[in-house]
């Protein structure tokens, strides 16, 4: 059985939804953050991809596109010791308290 990200040929009768959504500000932020991290050699495309592919299948399927990128950025930065999981969790709580 193929991995969850390997979608080519997975059976579906779902039509293609051609509508587009306007990016939320945090989606602009995630997209640009990857660009900044790439430029600074802190994250490359293959690492971003690996971080996405390392998500559990249920989380992968339930996440939106930039939620998957967010998960991957976190995985890779923690793995490299650039940030710790605890400080991210703490900072996320502050974000939640102010703007959640």
């Amino acid at each position, binding site marked *: 059985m193929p991995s969850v990200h390997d979608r*080519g040929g997975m059976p579906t009768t779902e039509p*293609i939804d051609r509508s587009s959504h306007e990016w939320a500000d945090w989606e602009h932020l995630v997209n640009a953050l990857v660009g900044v991290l790439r430029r600074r050699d802190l994250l490359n495309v293959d690492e971003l991809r690996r971080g996405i592919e390392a998500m559990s299948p249920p989380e992968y399927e339930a996440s939106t596109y930039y939620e998957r990128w*967010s998960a991957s950025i976190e995985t890779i930065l923690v793995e490299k010791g650039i940030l710790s999981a605890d400080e991210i969790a703490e900072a996320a709580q502050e974000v*939640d308290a102010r703007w959640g």
Partner: protein
Amino acid sequence: MSDDHSHPDLKHHVPLSERAKRAIAIHRLLVAKGIIGPAEVESVIDQVRTRSPADGAKVVARAWTDPAYKGRLLSDSRSAVLELGYRLSRDADLAVVENTAGVHHLVVCTLCSCYPTALLGPPPDWYKSFAYRQRAVVEPRAVLREFGTELDECARVRVVDSTADLRYLVLPRRPGGTDGMSEVELAGLVTRDSMVGVGEAKTP
């Protein structure tokens, strides 16, 4: 919901998912620690906004009007787009595939969303959707029909699967009735969809 309107991340007051909050948190930490500059993300956001399918359209229009350029574009896409001032990221190569009367190319990224953003801007939502990624490789003609593209029965459909290392751009067929049109006018006929292969260039 807070009344704090000062934070640039949150102009729209929609509830944030856990992953969204963590992304904002990561950004704040990276800035606070001096790992990235405070304005770097904003500057990339502005750069991303400047890229659109109009860039790819200029490349296509040049190829339609200059056979020597077209040859270079098909054989060494990276150098050819650089001639027009488009710099591709160093870790992903570009291949330009030509649509003809006999062969129609359709681009997908089954694994994720690889796309020539330097020439087209960010990919549309449908390109990243599970339905497109799953179906394009098994029933491309049905997918094309959903986009309103009906191909000649005799035309062969070739689906190309982009990867993180190699992205594809379709060189659509130049429509009839365009003799004598300028490069700028021709570029106006080149749509995003025609460069992904789900559509064809507009007719004048």
